[in-house]
Structure formats: structure tokens, C-alpha cells
């Protein structure tokens, strides 16, 4: 009979009508009186009494509350976190980048002359206008100096501003994401809650034992 299959569709739509909506509003979310009170940490009656202007706005439907997006710890953001104490300017990241957007210029440093020359970094540019954030550079870094960041709101008005220079990398907040860095998850580091102050926390400090090195280079030759 006509129309007997259609009511099941109507029931599905009605069920979805009655469910709470699944929109994640960003950057701020409209709230009513109860939501605004919860945001301020009071119960609604206190909120009405103590902040009448705000509660009037909330009842009229004009109050908003800022929202933080749920991100996982491994989120590959649109920025990089760089620990300059760990970097030796080996340029593995530049070599591994599929697009060739990392530019590294270094000169012999004439410091640590006892241990051999170490390199002084002059230019370290990453062009995030052309970057695809694949993370291969992060994978390549042997000293865990370069990490992906977690922020994603990095738009600029001028295209040339999209090139991250060495100074920006030095001065930026160090919130590395746990992408390709299992040691962050083992240590329980949450890039959204805190900053990584000490560069020693950024890497795995596994050194091969003497026996392992001997086995590889001497015994197996």
C-alpha cells in the first residue's frame, strides 16, 4: 500500500529532531541563563542577583561563551616547535621534506672546538604557505629538536608573513604535539595544558650501550 514505508523515515527524522544537536560552535557558543550561570560558576539564582545585566542578556539569547576545540594530543597543527639547544643544523629535515620548503643556512661555529666543529645556524625558514604538514621533517630529526605544533589559527594578511623565520621559532611558545613523539605520551605531557620549559624533556635520551655499539661496529664487521 502506498506510503507504508514512508513513516519509518518520518520516525527517524523525528528522533533526530529530539536529540541534542551535534554542532560544535566555534569560537563562541550561544548560551541561555543556565549556561551562562554555569560558565560563571554560580547557580542561576545567584547569577540573576549578582549580575543582572549579564543575566538579562542571557535570557534575551545574546550571551556567548568561548569554546575550546577538542584536539587530540597528536594533532598536527599549522606550526612548528623548535628546541634550539638540541638542533645541530644537520638539515635532515630539509632533505626529507617532499616539497623542499625548509631552508637551512649554517656556518661553521668555531665553538666546542674540543669536540670537533659544531655548526651555527644562520637561517632556518619554513614556508607554511606551501607546507602540507605531513610531518616527515619531524620524523627525520635525529635529535628531537623539531616538533609539530598544536595551533591551527595561523593566517596572515601578507603571503610573505607565512614564512616562519628562525627568530619566530626561537621565541614562540613551546607546545609540541605528540606526533611521532611517543615519549610525550609516556611522560603524560599535554600540550594544551602546559608549556615544555626544559629542552631535556623533549627527547628520548637513549644512548646505545657500549656492548651494543661494540656488537654492531666491531663484531658484525
Amino acid at each position, binding site marked *: 500500500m502506498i506510503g507504508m*514505508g*514512508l513513516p*519509518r523515515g518520518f520516525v*527517524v*527524522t523525528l528522533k533526530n529532531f529530539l536529540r541534542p544537536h551535534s554542532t560544535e560552535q566555534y569560537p563562541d557558543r550561544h548560551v541561555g541563563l543556565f549556561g551562562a550561570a554555569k560558565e560563571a560558576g554560580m547557580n542561576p539564582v545567584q547569577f540573576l542577583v549578582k549580575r543582572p545585566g549579564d543575566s538579562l542578556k542571557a535570557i534575551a539569547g545574546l550571551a556567548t561563551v568561548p569554546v575550546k576545540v*577538542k584536539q587530540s594530543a*597528536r594533532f598536527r597543527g599549522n606550526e612548528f616547535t623548535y628546541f634550539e639547544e638540541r638542533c645541530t643544523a644537520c638539515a635532515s629535515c630539509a632533505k*626529507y621534506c617532499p616539497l623542499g620548503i625548509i631552508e637551512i643556512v649554517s656556518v661553521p661555529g668555531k665553538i666546542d672546538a674540543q669536540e670537533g666543529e659544531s655548526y651555527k645556524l644562520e637561517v632556518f625558514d619554513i614556508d607554511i604557505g606551501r607546507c*602540507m604538514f605531513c610531518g616527515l621533517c619531524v620524523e627525520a630529526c635525529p635529535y628531537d629538536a623539531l616538533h609539530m605544533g598544536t595551533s591551527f589559527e595561523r593566517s596572515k594578511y601578507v603571503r610573505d608573513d607565512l614564512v616562519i623565520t628562525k627568530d619566530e621559532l626561537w621565541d614562540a611558545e613551546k607546545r609540541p604535539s605528540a606526533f611521532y613523539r611517543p615519549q610525550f*605520551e609516556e611522560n603524560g605531557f599535554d600540550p594544551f595544558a602546559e608549556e615544555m620549559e626544559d629542552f631535556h624533556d623533549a627527547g628520548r635520551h637513549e644512548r646505545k650501550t657500549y656492548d651494543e655499539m661494540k656488537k654492531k661496529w666491531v663484531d658484525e664487521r
Partner: protein
Amino acid sequence: MRVMFDGEEIVDVEPVFGYLHRGTEKLAEERTYSQIITLTDRMDYVSSMLNNQSYVLAVEKLAGIEASPRGVWLRMIASELQRIASHLVATGFLLQDLGALGTPLIYCMRERERILDLFEMLCGARITNSYMRPGGVFMDAPDEFWPALDRELDDIVNTIDELEAYLSGNEIIFSRTKGTAVLSPELLINASITGPMLRASGVDWDLRHRDPYDYYDKVDFKRILHTASDNYARYWVRVQEMRESVKIVRQCMEQIEPGPVRPSFDDVPRLIRPPVGDVYSAIEGSKGELGFYLVSDGSIAPYRMHARASSLINLTLLREMLIGEQFGDLFVIFGSVDLNMGEVDR
């Protein structure tokens, strides 16, 4: 696509594509084997894990790399989740083209968003993942992944049930999709069509059963076949395949064991130099047989890479499907083939 009409009836069709061509195969000649993984992500951008898997299997076959077990299980979980996401996109947009002003599309997209959140937990990116590497995957799943996956599989089954309740028995959808664009199995086999289009006409050809790769011989799932090769059959095959994918993921979750997710860098260096030779390796992608043909000359980059794009081959039958049909069915038929332009043009 240029279409010629006689009143309401379609008389001639000429597909014109190439607007999304990015030169993937040429770029691959200048990149190392690991860097090409980022290129393959972007071919069929709706099912990037499947592209990764196909390419990585080709490299493993070429270089003779043995994959580590936990990496293979994780690969299978990621691929099946990606298959569900891709079929959700296909189904949602087919229903949108049928005219249900976006309601089933939003339901499908809502589920897909949750799958993409799972991918973000795994590898940091939602769509262009680059999750796999020759020999396994590049990072193990975090601890919060497994309970989230469990919850999400239940949600997916609920959404599929809702979609079926919405659609099975809906007379309007029956009258719009049944009996349109019927193709015979001989025609499909001769045109080398694979994937849900082929299974909707009764041909029992699924590479996961016929030529099992990874650990697909250790999991148990049904073959989804339908005999009427019309729009409704193709849509129905995709919805049922989503259910089977959920079953596969659950079986992988039971059988996975702790261990390393990729071989150590002593066995498989970062810059792979496979022996000279060529290889063709294919998997069952969400739209059909997705294969890669790699030719190596012993250096760190392949001499030639060719991708057998399933969407490109599936669209060769558009003329037979469209000529003689009504104008109102044009986009519905187009949607039931499930083309992805990124794969067609590479």
C-alpha cells in the same frame, strides 16, 4: 561532462575530466619511497588510508620487506574505518542528489566526523593521513583510542540502522532508483569495472577474498552480492559493506597483540633502495581495485609509478549507463557510480 538531450531523454554523453590533474605520477619519480606516501594520500582524498595501504603493500612486495604484525593489524583497522567513511560519503551524496534536502547527508557526515576524530587520535590528521610506512604504520595507537573505537563502532551500527530504516521501504527512493541504469555482468567484466558496482550485479569478486593481502585471511566477513544491477543495488551493497567493515574491525581488535609497529631502522632503513624490478600490487579500495605499478632501478626513488585508479576505470561505462535515461536521473546515476575526481585525474 557534455550531455545532449532530446526533451527529457539523454542522447549522448561525453565525460570531460582532467581539471584536478596534479601530476602525481610524474612527481613520484623525484621523491623517495617514503615521501610518495604523502602524494598517494591526495589521490582519492576521501579514502586516503586505503591509498596508503595499496602503495605501501606495493613497496613491501618490491623490496621484500616483511611487515611487523601489530602494524598490519593497525593498518587493517585504519583501512576498514576509512572504507566506512568513504561509503558514508558516497551514500550521503547519493541521497542528497535524490533530493532529500540534506537530511541523510548530515547524518552520514556526522558519523564520518567521528571516524575522522579517531584518525586524529591515531596520526594527528583527519583526511590526508600518511599513516602507513613500508613495514607497518609509523606510530602506535594511543591508550584512549581503543575505548573510543569501541564506542564509535556501536554508533556506526546505530547510524547504519537508522539509514536503513529511513530508506528501505521508502517508495520514493524505490521508484527513483530501482530499474535505472541496469548493466549486465558481462559488460562490467569486459570493461574491467570492480568494486561495489561489480558486486551489485552478482559477480563474486572482492580482492580481500580472492587475493588476500595483509591479514584478511584471518578475519571472517560475508560477501555482499546483489543480483539486480541498478542504482538501488549499488547503494544497498555499499550500506551492507559498511556493516561488514565494522565486523572486521572488531575481529582485528580481538586479534591484535602488542609489539613493534614498524620494523627497526636496521632492517628497513628510512631510505629504501629496492632491488631492480617492477611490481604490481592491488587492494580492494572503497571504489574498486586500487593498484600501484612500481618500477625500480635500484635508487631511492622509483623510476616509474603508475596508479590504477578505480574511479577512472569505473567511469568508462557512463555512456552505457546514461543514454536512454531521463534527465532527472542524471545525477542519481552519476552518484551511484561513486566517482572521486581526485582519483580520476590523479
